[in-house]
């Protein structure tokens, strides 16, 4: 793929025989991402068939989209942490702690900040309390993330240890936040609840169409602008047919998503088309912002450079410590966003919120192609990884498979995905195929024997 991947002189040469690999390479599409999308579609179709046609329904896909958001949002941050050769085991506990803190603002008007509890009389009745709660959560999350990142980057304690400590600390801190000793906090502010989705927490019909149209315009504009930039610098542009296909496909997916899923799902409460759920809107915004950060900003370039070769990054004059610390800062802020979605969805803060989320988030990033060797992993891949995991779980729920068996299958898929990925990376196609077959057979046996 090394030679073909260059946008060499466009297809002017007469009768140049080009394999489909070259054609694919000339489109500069991430083949790994393509493979993941194909696997996801295969999983969907398989579950649809096995469940006698109840998987690919508007209702199920709409639920799937909402259920994937929390893990997917955190996975976008975890990618950057794993790419820079670290790990964050504290995200589940941190999510629980931040969710509890945000709930406390709404139920008791208390802003709890490391034991400095600040009570603002009447705050819980104000219309803007949801914004205060969200801001407190995000700021606190970023601060805690920075603290952990500081210890990793500047003090030099391995991330595994620092965040293992955080895993214990933040779960324990839930019981020492305010004077509630871990009692369930509920109900939450009405506006805050919308963040979790649900019948009211969605865009509704016409706003969803508006978003779809804007998204299509965005896709076309970004492809056009990229083309123009390349021309300006006299670089060979991507083949025209590839750009057109990509734009068309992108728009079709967006329009189908809104037309066939979100607006086809009639809310059982309002009896209107539901539209895109707010948490999904948040996920889309986070994914776009994180992709931009990772691919188009210096910070992202430095994260990948450090992950690829820490020494080279250092010698290149990059402030590597600051870069590493900032990946944890971001992770903390993203935990707060996910915490808001989970508490809002539950309309309560409970002490075991986010338990085991760290494992799901890491699994999503890894299934999405992030490598523990460092330097490799993409934001869209991690989001897809989260959707794959959630698809497996919700598909198995439809098949009435008990939750321990679900865990077994997700575990098998995790290992299989990484085995296939590393086999392909090493160019060992037969090993990849063998891994795929083995994973499929084991999963099928467990699903078949686990059906109630």
């Amino acid at each position, binding site marked *: 793929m*090394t030679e073909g*991947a260059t946008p060499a002189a466009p297809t002017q040469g007469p009768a140049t025989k080009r394999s489909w690999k070259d054609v694919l390479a000339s489109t500069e599409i991430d083949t790994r991402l393509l493979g993941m999308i194909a696997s996801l579609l295969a999983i969907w179709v398989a579950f649809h068939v096995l469940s006698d046609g109840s998987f690919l329904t508007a209702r199920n896909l709409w639920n799937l989209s909402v259920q994937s958001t929390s893990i997917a949002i955190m996975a976008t941050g975890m990618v950057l942490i794993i790419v820079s050769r670290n790990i964050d085991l504290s995200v589940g506990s941190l999510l629980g702690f931040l969710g509890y803190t945000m709930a406390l603002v709404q139920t008791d008007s208390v802003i709890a900040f490391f034991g400095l509890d600040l009570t603002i009389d009447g705050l819980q009745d104000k219309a803007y309390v949801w914004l205060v709660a969200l801001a407190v959560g995000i700021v606190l999350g970023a601060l805690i993330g920075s603290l952990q990142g500081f210890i990793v980057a500047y003090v030099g304690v391995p991330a595994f240890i620092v965040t293992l400590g955080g895993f214990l600390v933040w779960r324990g801190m839930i019981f020492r936040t305010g004077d509630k000793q871990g009692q369930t906090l509920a109900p939450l502010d009405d506006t805050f609840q919308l963040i979790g989705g649900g019948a009211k927490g969605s865009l509704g019909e016409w706003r969803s169409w508006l978003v779809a149209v804007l998204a299509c315009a965005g896709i076309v504009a970004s492809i056009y602008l990229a083309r123009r*930039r390349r021309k300006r610098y006299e670089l060979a542009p991507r083949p025209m047919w590839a750009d057109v296909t990509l734009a068309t496909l992108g728009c079709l997916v967006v329009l189908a998503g809104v037309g066939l899923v979100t607006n086809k799902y009639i809310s059982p409460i309002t009896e209107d088309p539901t539209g895109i759920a707010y948490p999904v809107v948040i996920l889309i915004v986070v994914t776009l912002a994180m992709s*931009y950060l990772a691919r188009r900003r*210096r910070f992202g370039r430095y994260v*990948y450079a450090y992950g690829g070769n820490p020494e080279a990054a250092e010698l290149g004059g990059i402030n590597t410590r600051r870069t590493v610390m900032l990946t944890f800062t971001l992770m903390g802020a993203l935990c707060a966003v996910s915490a808001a979605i989970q508490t809002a969805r539950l309309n309560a803060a409970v002490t075991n919120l986010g338990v085991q989320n760290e494992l799901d988030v890491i699994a999503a990033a890894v299934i999405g192609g992030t490598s523990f060797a460092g*330097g490799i992993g993409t934001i869209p891949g991690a989001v897809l990884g989260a959707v794959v995991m959630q698809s497996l779980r919700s598909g198995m729920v439809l098949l009435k498979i008990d939750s321990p068996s679900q865990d077994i299958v997700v575990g098998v898929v995790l290992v299989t995905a990484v085995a296939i990925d590393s086999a392909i990376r090493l160019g060992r196609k037969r090993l990849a195929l063998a891994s795929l077959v083995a994973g499929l057979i084991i999963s099928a046996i467990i699903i078949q024997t686990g059906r109630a």
Partner: protein
Amino acid sequence: MTDTHTEPAPSERGGPPLVEMRDIRVAFGGIHAVDGVTIDLYPGEVVALVGGNGAGKSTLIHTLAGAHPADSGQIVINGVPVTIHNPRDARLYGVEVIYQKLALADNIDAAGNVFLGRELHTRTGALDDSAMASATQKVMARLNPRFKNLKTPVKSLSGGQRQSVAIARAVHFNAKILIMDEPTAALGPAETAQVRELITQLKSEGIGIFLISHDIHDVFDLADRISVMLQGRLVGTVKKSDVTKDEVLAMIIAGKKPGDVSLDDIAKLH
């Protein structure tokens, strides 16, 4: 062991030296990796730094590159004393380094590596990948016209192509002082020839080059002067035209200056 003073800088060159490193000392724990070494470099000159493993060549040059601080000593660039704390400082003074292990981020493409740490950005602060790719293409056209793989991660490039990327980085940013740490160690014969050609070209453009090398043939083909180090000390600096390969080998192995080498010593070498 002989005295560790350099010869006076060749006065016929006129003008101040590009770089003077005076009495540099670096210790790791109790070990003096570099122990009071003084060397200099003039514009358009190649000074080879030779010595066995652990002689302190790389450590000495790292202090100029900003990769490791000196414990004491002075660095003077164009007659002005400077302090270099990190690679960024070094670059401000026009010092560019091509490291032995190439110091490339394998997962990033050629343009990304050329501009690593000095990315071009648009008005909104986003990376200007097209501008960087375009600039890289221009430098490459000069260094290695066959180089086409601008968009692939450098991991998938050959040793020579990777070397081109490392050199392009130095050339694009108008290095005044170029440090090459074993530039041909990882290369095949054809690629080595290419790098040699390039060194000659850069030299003719007035760039001063410190060449660290194990390869005595490289050294004799390319260098104007040769500084020999042994166990952290400078054995001496000689003009290439004044010495033979055997004499330099004697300096490297026995730490003896050419005048002090007896036929016995040379016999022992063989």
